[in-house]
């Protein structure tokens, strides 16, 4: 059976009755979005990898023990688990000093991007690397809303409920996050142009 044409709910039903290929398709379909969401919250590659695995162990355990009752809404459910575990980790980690390795830069630069176009690949790669840095530099409250809305596809009302703020605060944080990102990009572009076209 061609599983690519099946929706998440159908794949999940197959997985519940023991079809491992259906789980593989579900995982491949959503892995990058889930990993990106986790990474942008915890801001560390290795922690993101551990949490990604932890999230899916929880998913597998819940489904295989017959405790799954989300009625086919697979991705929002997994993203909710991912978000909760990432936020837990992030809050705990803030209570302890961060250990920075001597070659710390490689931790942040070695991740690959999902969609690397053939044309202008280097420019795109540079842009994404900058974006990764700028997103990580955003204040925690803005970065959290950005990840929840843009990658986890939560509504602003859901974000407001999950973070304990009003919907206007959630909207404001998202707006500032977007404006900050654009400003940082423009500043970088201006600095680059000045260097390139210096008199």
């Amino acid at each position, binding site marked *: 059976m061609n599983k690519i044409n099946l929706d998440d709910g159908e794949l999940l039903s197959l997985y519940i009755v023991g079809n*491992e290929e259906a*789980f*593989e398709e579900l*995982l*491949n379909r959503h*892995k*990058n*979005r*889930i*990993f*990106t969401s986790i*990474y942008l919250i915890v801001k560390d590659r290795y922690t993101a*990898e551990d949490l*990604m*695995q932890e999230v*899916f*162990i929880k998913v*597998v*355990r819940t489904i*295989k*023990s017959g405790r799954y009752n989300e009625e086919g809404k697979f991705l929002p459910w997994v993203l909710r688990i991912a978000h909760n575990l990432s936020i837990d980790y992030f809050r705990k980690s803030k209570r302890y000093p961060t250990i920075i390795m001597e070659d710390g830069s490689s931790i942040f630069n070695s*991740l*690959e*991007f*999902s*969609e690397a176009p053939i044309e202008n690949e280097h420019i*795109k790669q540079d*842009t*994404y690397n900058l*974006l*990764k840095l700028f*997103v990580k530099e955003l204040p925690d409250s803005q970065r959290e809303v*950005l990840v929840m*809305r*843009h990658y986890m596809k939560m*509504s*602003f009302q859901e974000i407001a409920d999950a973070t304990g703020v009003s919907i*206007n605060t959630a*909207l*404001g944080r*998202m*707006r500032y996050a*977007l*404006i900050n*990102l*654009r400003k940082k*990009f423009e500043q970088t572009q201006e600095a680059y142009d000045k260097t390139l076209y210096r008199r």
Partner: protein
Amino acid sequence: MIKPFTEDDLVRFIYDEINENERLDLNESLQSNIHLRASLEQINKAKSLLEGFILKAPKDVISRILYASKNFHSA
């Protein structure tokens, strides 16, 4: 009379969280309000930067998850 729109309304607009009536009113406002149009353009630019920004989940992590699923035994 059309209600005045805020920049937060523009954020709801680009993330498709406004109703049909608001959409019509907002489109009308954008025709005449140059500042609103400029604000929309700015946040839209930022949103479009994020569109292709998806990291690749590492293969070994995916392999470990698939292995765990295949070898799961409930207690």
